[in-house]
């Protein structure tokens, strides 16, 4: 079945139907209609999958998809246009540009924590770039997967974009097929398997993975505001966000203050009993519930810690004095547990971060510019937000992606379009000026070699910063001046 899907899509792609910009815009508009007209159904599915509140759904999924669609629709003309580049003397009269072209059939594998955004945002870029696409939503968010499979063919060209549902077996079968790009969001472990499968067909991949995103709180900062922002980012979606602040690093002297501020904020956000708050989500399933709960062993609970397996509920929990060798520090938490690891200042914090895999996101809270600068320049991560959390994800002009163990490639806004396009280098020459070409043809003579080198180089242009046209203009001006002098001389 998976082979039929992939082969069928390839045939449809080769018909050329997805190339005209008009077609792509039409599909984007249809996608927008899907999420606006069926918003309630989507909210209902997410409520069943994650106990997600309707506002949370709009805030974290639908608004970003909508914005991406609108941006793509309005900018598509620019994005898809040929991009002229710098020339050398040899190519001064030629057309030289980069032409963005579709890749073909792309496979987008989604994940369960933001089942709509993680699959539809890449789809927006795939459509904009003129590709066909297979979507494989996560089976763990089964209501969303089922709804997506039902809705997509009702709005989009069902021959060009298809949803394949199923579990591990179906995904493995899909990965045996040949695609022109695979876009995967999920864990590093599965990311390696995806890359391995892609290797057989030499398929390029984008891997949006995870890791432990550190959050350093400097003692010189507004701790109250910092804690509010961190609490929001950590416990939204019950901590099940790839860029949630995974753990806090701070000096021992401010640990208690941090706990106090988080406590105040939790009360404000979810009231006394988060379990009955309509704004607090659940863990996706009992397997993850068990996994997250087990991470609390060995730890000292400063706040929260309550749980209810029947509801997959784990209270917003803060753990203090966590040590680096604890289990909770060995894997990405992906749940509502916030460990605090104490360090003696910025040097130790930087060293701690650099001793671990490069994370998807890094956060630093400080009023001291030197602290921020050092954190930025002495560490590496997919992205950074300073003095807040999650927010760099939301600016579509920033490329979003990981580095090292946290992933490869990037997307959002125009970056998705670029990621799912081939940038074809084009040199359009005429047969004119064949005389110039003599310089490069054998047999070798010293004169020919000198001429060939001269026309190839950029040194004249680049090093002095003067462009070709400035030189030509200058020569023309001198020529005109000489002509003028001659004319005047003759007249006089």
């Amino acid at each position, binding site marked *: 079945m998976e082979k039929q899907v992939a082969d069928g899509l390839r045939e449809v792609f080769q018909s050329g139907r997805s190339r005209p910009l008009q077609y792509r815009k039409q599909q984007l508009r249809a996608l927008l209609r899907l999420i606006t007209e069926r918003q309630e159904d989507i909210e209902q599915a997410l409520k069943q999958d994650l106990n997600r*509140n309707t*506002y949370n759904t*709009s805030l*974290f999924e639908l*608004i*970003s998809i909508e*914005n*991406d669609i*609108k941006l793509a629709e*309005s900018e598509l003309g620019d994005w898809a246009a040929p991009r002229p580049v*710098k020339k*050398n003397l040899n190519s001064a009269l030629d057309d*030289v540009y*980069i*032409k963005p072209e579709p890749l073909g059939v792309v496979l987008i594998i989604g994940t369960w924590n933001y089942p709509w955004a993680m699959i539809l945002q890449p789809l927006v870029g795939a459509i904009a770039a003129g590709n066909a696409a297979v979507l494989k939503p996560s089976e763990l968010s089964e209501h969303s997967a089922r709804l997506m499979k039902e809705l997509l063919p009702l709005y989009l060209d069902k021959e060009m974009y298809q949803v394949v549902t199923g579990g591990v077996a179906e995904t493995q079968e899909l990965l045996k097929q040949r695609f022109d790009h695979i876009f995967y969001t999920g864990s590093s472990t599965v990311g*390696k398997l995806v890359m391995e499968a*892609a*290797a057989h067909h*030499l398929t*390029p991949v984008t891997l949006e993975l995870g890791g432990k995103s550190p959050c350093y709180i400097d003692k010189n900062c507004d701790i109250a*505001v910092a804690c*509010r922002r961190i609490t929001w980012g950590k416990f939204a979606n019950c901590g099940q966000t790839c860029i949630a602040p995974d753990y806090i690093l701070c000096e021992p002297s401010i640990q208690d203050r941090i706990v106090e501020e988080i406590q105040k904020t939790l009360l404000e956000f979810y*009231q006394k009993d988060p379990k009955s708050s309509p704004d*607090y989500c659940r863990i996706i399933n009992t397997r993850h519930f068990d996994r997250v709960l087990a991470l609390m062993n060995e730890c000292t609970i400063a706040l929260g810690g309550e749980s209810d397996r029947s509801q997959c509920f784990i209270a917003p929990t803060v753990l203090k004095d966590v040590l680096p060798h604890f289990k909770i520090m060995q894997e990405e938490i992906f749940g509502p547990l916030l460990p605090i690891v104490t360090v003696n200042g910025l040097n130790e914090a930087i060293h701690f971060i650099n001793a671990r895999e490069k994370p998807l996101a890094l956060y630093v809270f400080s009023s001291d510019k030197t602290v921020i600068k050092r954190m*930025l320049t*002495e560490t590496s991560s*997919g*992205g*950074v*937000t*300073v*003095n*807040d959390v999650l*927010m*760099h994800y939301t*600016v*579509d*002009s920033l*490329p979003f992606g990981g*580095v*090292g163990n946290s*992933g*490869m*490639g990037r997307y959002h*806004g125009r970056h998705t379009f670029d990621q799912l396009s081939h*940038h*074809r*280098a*084009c040199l359009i020459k*005429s047969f004119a000026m*064949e005389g110039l070409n003599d310089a*490069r043809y*054998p*047999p*070798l003579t010293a004169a020919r070699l000198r001429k060939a*080198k001269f026309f190839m*180089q950029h*040194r004249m242009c*680049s*090093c002095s910063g003067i462009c070709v046209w400035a030189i030509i203009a200058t020569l023309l001006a001198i020529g005109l001046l000489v002509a003028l002098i001659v004319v005047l001389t003759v007249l006089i």
Partner: protein
Amino acid sequence: MESQKQVLERLRAAFRSGVTLPMHFRLTQLEAMMSLFEDNENQILEALHEDLAKPKFETVLSEIEIVVNDICYAISNLQTWMQPTYVGTNLATKLDDCFVRSEPLGVVLIIGAWNYPLHLILLPLIGAIAAGNCAILKPSEISRATEKLLAELIPKYLSQECYAVVCGGAEETKTLLENRFDHIFYTGSQSVARCILLAAAVHLTPVTLELGGKCPCLIYGRLDMKAAAKRLVWAKFFNTGQSCVAPDYVLCTTETRDALLPFIKEALESFYGSDPQQSPDLGRIVTDRHWDRLVELLKKSEGKIVIGGESDKKTKYIAPTVIVDVIESDALMQEEIFGPILPIITIKSLDEAINFVNEREKPLALYAFSDESQVVTTVLERTSSGGFCSNDGIVHMSLPGLPFGGVGASGMGNYHGRWGFETFSHKRGCMMRSWLLECVNVLRYPPYNESNLSWLRWATTAKKKGWAACSVM
């Protein structure tokens, strides 16, 4: 002698020390690379001659000048490339700074190829250095003299802390690939590329693969036969056809073929004289094994040799050869030729030519020769390839403004000029939020309500062209 692991550990320690980060360091290394070329031109000419009987002309243009140009381009532009790029923000984030930092990846591995043994390893190195990485170079063992030269010169000119050359064959490369790198840049064949990708998957290492394929050359419609022939012959027989972007085969009508052949003969004679074997401007096949493969292809081919066909095993010589009446199933059409043999396949229409190309793997380069711009446009619009050049061959790769790379089976990723810098960089999205306006952040905090959501929607919808949208304040 250091083991591979020791080399890697040394480079990793150097990278961690931050020595490659300052612009001054990178510029010094690039200038040192320039000196490497300036001081050693004769040794370079000799090494390339020993490996491939490469004529001086070709070595200067395709191994020295092209690399030196790129070094200069990098030196002039490095400061700009290294600057963070500020991106648009909207009303909600006006008090914040959003920018993209270009950061080095760490320790990268660059595996070269034998056909342009200096160029294909040093051009990527320019990008790696410019982007602030450390690098291990693994030159091809097939081009032995150049391998030896690189092993001698790189430590002499570049920082030994940060850049190292590792020599060896398939076994050594396999062992090298078991280590963890932050990027692997490979130029070579598809079968080895698969192994490299599998090795990279173990460590989630991103890769750039510069592969090959059969680069078609469509010649159609009205054209300047003489110029077309000269350019085609130059591009095909440069480096004795051993170029990943050489026009592999020609597609044209019978009439065009018959009109073109005399001009091809004329061009060959003007380039290499009446006896190409005596010309100092024609190279040789790299090894006996490669020579055997090509001669075997010629034997198996059912086409008719109209030009050339002669060969001499002792000197690894194969004459510039043109074969006509080649059909799809011919031996010459089953693999990348990578030699001085040019099959001409006749087609009846442009559609037929385009379909022929599209039934095959996407090539690294595609050429269209025609004086009719509509023909060129049609070919460009209806095909896919790494790069495209009309009315000439190979030269598109000499422009550092253009990214050079494949698509599909011909590769992934690209380099040259700024693209090399980008390939070896991580583009880190950064947002510096203000401490102010925490009251406005309230809109996003629980307890959630309808009116907050409406405000958020309004404040974050992309209203104006060029403004970045911010989904959640």
